[in-house]
Each structure stands twice: as C-alpha cells, then as structure tokens.
C-alpha cells in the first residue's frame, strides 16, 4: 500500500513514540511479563506428553479391536468346552433336596455309574 508522504511521516513519528514508550517499561512490568512467558512455556511442557499419548491413540484403538476380534473368534470353543445341559442337570439334581447321606456313599454311586455305562446294570 503506497502511503502519501505526510501520512508516512505521521506513522513514522507515531511508531517512534511507541517504541520509546516500550523501552521505558519499568522493571516490575518486565518481570511480570517474564513470569507470564515462563507460565506459557510451562503450558507447552504440560501439553506435550498428552500430545504424545494422543499420537498413539489410533494404534491403541487398532490393538484393542484386534484383541476383541480374537476373543470373539474363540467364543464358540469356550461354549463347547462347557457342557451347559450336563452342568444344569447336576445343578437341578443338587437342588432337588436329596439327603446329604448320599454323599457319604459317593464311591458306591461312582461305581454304579461306571457299571451302568459299561452295560452291566439294567
């Protein structure tokens, strides 16, 4: 922007006065400015570790998704390993209120169970 010479002269004088007023700032004010600057720089240090963590956020997301995927793929095998109907039958048996004396002859019942499976009984 081309400025008329008298306007430029005016601006130059204003700038000169302004610069002088900047040079005349007292020590207490300069000290407060210095303190403010260091607080701002401390903010930079506080912000940096967060930014470094955020940089790993996508990788962490992918890793978490992979772990979930593996868990989901393994889910049917786990279901098969647990014989849910059998376990439920045993639970029902226990809830039927048979006498606890049965457990005193537990070895006898195990033997009977084995014979039943081998076709020696019934």
């Amino acid at each position: 922007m081309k400025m008329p010479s008298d306007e430029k002269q005016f601006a130059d004088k204003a700038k000169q006065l302004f610069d002088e007023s900047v040079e005349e700032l007292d020590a207490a004010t300069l000290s407060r400015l210095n303190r403010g600057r260091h607080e701002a720089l401390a903010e930079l240090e506080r912000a940096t570790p967060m930014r470094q963590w955020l940089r790993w956020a996508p990788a962490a997301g992918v890793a978490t998704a992979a772990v979930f995927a593996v868990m989901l793929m393994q889910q049917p095998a786990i279901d098969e390993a647990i014989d849910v109907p059998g376990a439920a039958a045993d639970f029902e048996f226990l809830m039927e209120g048979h006498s606890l004396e049965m457990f005193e002859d537990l070895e006898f019942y195990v033997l009977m169970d084995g014979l039943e499976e081998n076709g020696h009984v019934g």
Partner: protein
Amino acid sequence: MNTESAVFVVSWSGEHSIRTNALDKERQLNRFFAEVERRALRIAEIAVRDRDDALDIVQDAMIKLARNYVQRPEKEWTPLFYRILQNGVRDWHRRQAVRNRVMGWFGRSRDDDGDYDAIAQAPDPMGRTPDEELANREAMTGLEAAVGRLPGRQREAFMLRTFEGLDVADTATAMGCSEGSVKTHYSRAIHSLREALGEHWQ
C-alpha cells in the same frame, strides 16, 4: 549388533528426536515471546487503558498460542498471536460494557485512570534532555488518548500496522477480515488521528 540392540537404538533415537524437537519448539517460542511481549503489552494497554488487565490479556494470549498453535509454522505465529490478543481485548471491552451497565443501574462508575501512571520516575535511558523527554511523553500521551478514542477496528488496524509493523496480509489474519477492510480501517484511522492530533504534532 543383535536385534535387541537395534530395537533399543531405534527406540532411543526416536525418543531423542521427539525431545529435541520439543526443546527446539520451546526455544523458538521463548524467543518469539521475548521479541513481541513488550510491544504486545503496550498495544493491549493502549486498547484497555489498564496495565494490569493488559498484562493478563498478554499472558492469556501467550498461553493460548503455546497450547493450541505451537505446531504451526513459526512465520504464522505473529498474526495468530495478535489475533488471540485482539480477541482478548474485544472480550475485555465486552465485559467492561456489561460491567458498566450493571454499575450504572446502581449509580456507580469506575474511574479507570485512577492509578494509571503514564510518567515513569526513572531517568531517561535514551539520553534525551528533560524537555525532549517531557515533550515526547506528552506527545505519546496525546497519541494514546487519540488511539483509545478510535473505533475498535480502526484502532486494531492502526496499532498492528504502525506499532507492530505487520503487513496488510498479516494484519488481515490477525483481525480476521479481508485485506481491503484493513486498508479502509487503517486509512480512516490515520485521517482521524491526524485531525485529532494535528495541532500538537506540527
């Protein structure tokens, strides 16, 4: 070098590079703030007529630049910093307007110039005679008062262009307007100031 050593060296050099980069940024930012802070303070002080409030505005601007824009190229820092600063000044004026309205309802007003000390007591560091020093201080006081009376956008354009020496493009970025608007505001500001100060500045 076995695999573990290689991984360690790569990891160490990566971390070292991040730390070096952070330190470089900190040094650059420190240099930038040290360069602009005093002029920024005077610009804010002329706009709000209160040194304590101006110091708060400048510090706020420095913190916001450090927090949000430090990764931007260094050449963008000046207009960004002054944009934040000008927003701070505008917020201050809005708050003052609300405050004055509220105080007006209670029949009170604040005298901002009460503790404003324009004349420092220290000897002149530039070696001027007392008469020259006094004349310059009076001229600056007159200029500050006249700049303070300008409409907000004209004041911003004048101070950023004249005092901070920003070019039209950077001033437009700092003010958040077009370059054409900057030229218009600046031209009007110069005319108003020359009219207001003409007789004292001949």
